[in-house]
């Protein structure tokens, strides 16, 4: 992959939609994985119905679509380990961190220790996060 001058930008992908009613969630995930090849500083945020994308034990048997949720577990392999989930959105849907997949990454700077990728954030923290970004992409 060609390095475009070696500039690293901060990218935030904002996910607001339920995983299977539309193509947004899957498209976002694919863009994230493709974009990972460019070695930018990538963060993911899950807000509103987007929090359902990270729900554990998803089953798509009844709707005839591919269950792509296992792919979120590969994000750590792609060095994507900053995953922010809006705490209010979770609570409004009767969910907690325990209802989400246990996404992890291996910290190369800490003897490859396995660490959690998901952080719960409130709306002020989310606003601050968005403020820091060079690019914000909404799905």
């Amino acid at each position, binding site marked *: 992959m060609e390095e475009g001058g070696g500039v690293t930008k901060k990218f935030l992908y904002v996910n607001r939609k339920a995983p299977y009613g539309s193509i947004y969630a899957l498209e976002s995930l694919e863009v994230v*994985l493709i974009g990972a090849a460019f070695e930018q500083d990538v963060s993911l945020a899950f807000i509103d119905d987007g929090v359902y994308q990270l729900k554990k034990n998803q089953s798509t048997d009844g709707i005839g679509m591919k269950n792509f949720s296992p792919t979120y577990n*590969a994000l750590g392999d*792609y060095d994507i380990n900053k995953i922010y989930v809006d705490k209010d959105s979770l609570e409004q849907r009767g969910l907690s961190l325990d209802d989400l997949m246990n996404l992890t990454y291996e910290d190369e700077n800490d003897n490859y220790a396995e660490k959690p990728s998901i952080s719960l954030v409130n709306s002020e923290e989310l606003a601050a996060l968005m403020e820091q970004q060079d690019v914000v992409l909404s799905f």
Partner: protein
Amino acid sequence: MASIDVNGKSVEVDEEGYLVNLSEWTQDAAKILSAQDELELTDNHWEVINFLREYYDEYQIAPAVRVLTKAIGKKLGPEKGNSKYLYELFPYGPAKQACRFAGLPKPTGCV
């Protein structure tokens, strides 16, 4: 739609030679696909092909080459987890070519 003949059974492939239906993959299909590239599969090739199939089974994606290289290194040791070794096995690109032999779709992020 193109197809290949695997022991008398017709197996559909797309325009780039990737299997259309993952479930139609067999070891013989891998042998026929590799023969098309004039490559004979050794144990070292199978190690990578089997690894890719396990990765797909777990994560539902074919890994990008960078991810594949790192993961192979972790599983099979650093002497195998490097691009030189993997490109010697799969000269058309370890992710692209090995995924095709493994019956997987083209890796996400490959053009």
